[in-house]
């Protein structure tokens, strides 16, 4: 069955929209100078990278790693430590950082992928905690709980011309955008590749996949290594951008959980799910931090600003993002188990098959 010219035109639509979105994002800093807006966009890009990276092994492969903070932390710590103590420029420091993350992923995968379901999840959390405790206690290297405050990034000079001195948010904006686009493209490639098919088969039924000639651990490991690569890249970018890392903000359980949430809320096993999830989560955490939600509750007259409850919300809701995330995940799993994007896709599929059934009956 060949696609009709009409449907071929429709197939081009996502490409056109995608290119338009990237171009729009690329020229945005020319028109928007507000550091606050750029800050939000950098956080959004970082969340996209992490969500897409996790999606490869978690969403397509069904291996719910709640330990991706390990790879994020390896990326952040390796680049920052090498820069701060050895003076190694971050674009060189990235090589050992990414290599280390991929090697660690191969080792961790070979051990933990023997486990299935909840046992694998628990093992992934345990592994990330080992790395957090290492960052906390290996003080000569990591400066322990005090963390490392970066004293500066050397300017990037290529062929005698200075590209940037990293004094504004703009270079981070472009690095984040570029890497986010790359992870989306990698996901598109992954989805149509043998690797992607095999990971989805593993997600649906490991025994059936195995019987069809799929060596389970090998393919899970390959996907985890790609996933760890991009997660560590995001970690490195985060460390350089914020200029400060400590065990909690670079290897904490919060990071692992947020990565999983980004993918689950947006829609696991879809190319754009993590993008949607990242947009929702960054917007939500920002709304909580700046007390928009409390203002909304008070403004709508539901809560009296002067009352004890109003005061309590104003003081505490901004710190309650993990609580709200938890509620959000529960709601997503209950009412939209395939995430926001997956839910929309299911609706479309239902409508199409209903139309097909009606067409067949006529």
């Amino acid at each position, binding site marked *: 069955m060949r696609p009709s010219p009409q449907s071929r035109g429709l197939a081009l639509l996502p490409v056109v929209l995608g290119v338009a979105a990237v171009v729009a994002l690329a020229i945005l800093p020319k028109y928007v100078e507000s550091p606050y807006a750029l800050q939000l966009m950098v956080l959004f890009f970082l969340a996209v990278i992490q969500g897409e990276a996790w999606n490869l092994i978690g969403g397509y492969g069904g291996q719910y790693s709640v330990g991706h903070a390990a790879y994020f932390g390896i990326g952040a710590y390796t680049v920052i430590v090498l820069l701060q103590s050895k003076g190694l420029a971050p674009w060189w420091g990235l090589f050992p950082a990414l290599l280390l993350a991929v090697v660690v992923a191969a080792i961790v995968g070979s051990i933990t992928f023997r486990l299935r379901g909840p046992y694998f999840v628990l093992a992934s959390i345990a592994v990330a905690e080992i790395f957090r405790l290492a960052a906390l206690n290996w003080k000569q290297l990591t400066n322990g709980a005090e963390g490392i405050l970066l004293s500066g990034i050397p300017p990037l000079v290529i062929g005698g011309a200075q590209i940037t001195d990293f004094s504004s948010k703009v270079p981070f904006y472009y690095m984040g955008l570029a890497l986010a686009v790359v992870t989306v493209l990698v996901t598109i490639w992954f989805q149509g590749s*043998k690797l992607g098919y095999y990971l989805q088969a593993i997600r649906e*039924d490991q025994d059936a996949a195995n*019987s*069809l*000639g799929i*060596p389970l651990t090998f393919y899970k490991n390959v996907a985890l290594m790609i996933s760890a690569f991009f997660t560590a890249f995001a970690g490195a970018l985060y460390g350089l951008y914020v200029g400060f890392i400590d065990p909690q903000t670079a290897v904490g359980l919060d990071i692992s959980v947020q990565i999983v949430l980004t993918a689950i809320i947006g829609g696991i096993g879809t190319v754009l799910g993590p993008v949607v999830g990242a947009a929702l989560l960054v917007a939500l955490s920002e709304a909580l931090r700046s007390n928009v939600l409390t203002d909304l509750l008070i403004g709508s007259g539901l809560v009296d600003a002067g009352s004890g409850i109003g005061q309590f919300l104003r003081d505490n809701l901004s710190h309650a993002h993990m609580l709200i995330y938890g509620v959000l995940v529960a709601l997503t799993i209950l009412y939209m188990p395939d995430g926001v994007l997956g839910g929309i896709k299911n609706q479309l*599929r239902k409508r199409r098959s209903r139309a097909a059934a009606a067409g067949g009956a006529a």
Partner: protein
Amino acid sequence: MSAVPEPILEIKSVSKFFGGLAANSDVSFTMDEGMILGLIGPNGAGKTTLFNCITGYYPPTKGEILFKGQRLNGMTPDQVCKLGMVRTWQKVRPLAKLSVLDNVVVGALVRTGSVPEAREIAREQLHVVKMAHKADFLAGGLPIGERKKLEVARVLATKPDLLLLDEVMGGLNPAESEDIIQLILDIKKRGLTQMVIEHDMKAIMRISDRIVVLNSGEKLAEGAPQEVVSNPEVVTAYLGEAHV
């Protein structure tokens, strides 16, 4: 002069113990290329356990299994599949959230790294089981008869030499069973060897060249279909002493 063809599969004194329980004990038989062997026996006779041993899900406790002359002991299911032997599941295992076509593509990918090529192979196999019109449906939404056919298409796509079919007619209505019988006979015509577990005696008599009867983990009888059903021991195992 060609030598006597080697058997495609040799089961040599295979035993499988779970703790003290002998699920298979000292089972031996061979299969020639192109034949259909029916594996029958009452519930709990050890038929599925034998499938699991042959395809690498359990290592046999004792004995050995040779496929195309090669010893399989210690191989994993994916390695066994690559060698050309593949099984279906008594309780069907569709990749529920993938389309029917993609389910078969997964099978085809064991022989090629190219997804477009795998899609071609998959479309052919869907034609063989007469499910081409369902290619874009989600596998999880199929009725049981079509799920069983999808299992067959999926294993055919791995280009096997030997197929092990575990109750592909279980739970089907007579018309659907007849479809499957025709499918199995078609597959035989294409030169593939098949081992079939089935409870429907009429069906198994029709399709099998040879029948092996298991009872309480042991091989009770082996022979041509007519021979086996008139064997008094087999009748006893199925119907009890009083009927002999």
